[in-house]
């Protein structure tokens, strides 16, 4: 695994530079917005990456709590499978509003199951908390990029930096706030209890997100409708560049997470060793 990291880092660097070239020079210029639109490739790819990282954090938090206990682990596995299957069936049975494709809902359901079991396979119950820290930290970084690039684009195009009450803007901001408070909780809590209470907060945060979304959705929304999928139209060349950028950003995120995860595991090993040593040395010092 260790030898793979530099190779992966090299591939990521190559991908990022190619994606940068494509975004700045390769992609066609947008008709009305001009070159400002090119920030879209960074904004959207960071947003998708951040959301995926936060979702992995949610999955890891659940797994940290349920995998301590065999029966709750089994029950949760079945609940996840059932939820995914129900989503797939519901996508084809329930009448969906215009602009949402049945297949995209169904594939979301399947990828949720896949992601859950992938995390379960790759990370042991003790290490899954390290994954939660890692994804939360890296997710906050990507989410910050989204919140900075958004206003940079909005100022010339909308004429305002920030639209209060817009559903995607405000939901993303609240998501960011929740995860910053998550990181603060981790920083301030006493070490032994951190994982459990942090996992509880992560689950609360994840439950909050749909409520935030619906509450703000009730206001009129100003953000451009998603251009991917049925609703909008996008030049196929632009879509190509966007997906390339997303791939590059995801690789970059995986790379940072990888390094951060290894650091976290090493940190824990050092702490454990130190604690063990102090236990062993104590009788001698008393004598």
């Amino acid at each position: 695994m260790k030898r793979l990291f530099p190779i992966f880092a090299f591939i990521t660097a190559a991908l990022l530079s190619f994606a940068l070239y494509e975004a700045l020079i390769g992609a066609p210029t947008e008709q009305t917005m001009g070159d400002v639109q090119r920030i879209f490739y960074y904004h959207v790819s960071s947003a998708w990456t951040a959301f995926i990282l936060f979702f992995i954090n949610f999955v890891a938090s659940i797994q940290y709590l349920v995998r301590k206990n065999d029966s709750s682990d089994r029950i949760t596995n079945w609940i996840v499978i059932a939820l995914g299957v129900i989503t797939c069936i519901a996508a084809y049975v329930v009448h969906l509003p215009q602009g949402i494709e049945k297949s995209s809902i169904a594939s979301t359901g399947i990828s949720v199951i896949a992601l859950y079991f992938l995390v379960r396979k790759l990370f042991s119950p003790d290490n899954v908390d390290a994954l939660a820290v890692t994804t939360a930290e890296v997710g906050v970084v990507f989410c910050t990029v989204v919140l900075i690039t958004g206003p940079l684009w909005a100022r010339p195009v909308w004429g305002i930096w920030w639209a209060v009450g817009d559903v995607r803007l405000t939901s993303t901001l609240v998501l960011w706030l929740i995860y910053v408070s998550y990181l603060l909780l981790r920083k301030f809590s006493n070490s032994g209890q951190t994982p459990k209470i942090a996992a509880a907060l992560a689950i609360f945060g994840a439950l909050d997100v749909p409520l935030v979304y619906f509450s703000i959705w009730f206001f009129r929304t100003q953000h451009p409708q998603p251009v991917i999928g049925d609703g909008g139209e996008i030049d196929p060349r632009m879509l190509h560049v966007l997906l390339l950028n997303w791939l590059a950003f995801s690789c970059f995120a995986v790379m940072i997470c990888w390094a951060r995860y290894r650091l976290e595991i090493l940190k824990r090993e050092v702490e454990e060793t130190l604690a063990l040593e102090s236990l062993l040395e104590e009788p001698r010092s008393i004598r």
Partner: protein
Amino acid sequence: MSLLSGLLGNIAAATLSKDVRLEWRSKDAINSMLFFALLVVVIFSFSFDPNAEESRRIAGGLIWVGFLFAAVVALNQTWARELRNQVLDAYRVSPAPANSLFLAKALGNFIFVCVLEALMAPLFILFYNLRALGPGWQLIPIALLGTWAIVVNGTFFAALSIRTRSREIMLPLLLFPISIPALLAMVEATTDVLSGEYSARFWIALLMAYDVVFTIASLFLFETVLHAE
């Protein structure tokens, strides 16, 4: 008392009555909350100096922000009291179910904050010359649901934050981001009722959904948090 134990179970009823009795005798939480909320009302009225039309528009926000800040005062004391003499540790080793403790604490806080609101609401009406143009009775379910939304999450997060350094400051940092949808719903519902322009029904439904989701989540996770070691 027997009716209370029938409804909640003995342990929850005993904890609740103990908390209410303690509060009745010391009046620590309610006094500090009342004074805090009063300060908020006075300072806001100085800093905005609104006329009747404007105050109808902003009063919903002012009231709920004031109550949210004041509720944090009571919520911070919820568990701190049990840390003295290791009461919480005793509870942890006892076979009593964790959820009855949580329910009792949440209900206790609910009662305190409701008393605060009942006492402060007339003052708000006086200071801002409020008169509801919409159906005024809807303010009561809004207040009850909104208070429960603040209190159920607040009690849970107070239990999280007693495990941190600088716990007094940690509670609002955890509570405020998560309560944004509830606060938005309370403020918008109150403004809709006061201004009478729109129906507050959507917001009341949202508050109900919020309450149900987070009450269930708290009951599911409280035991883990109480026993986190």
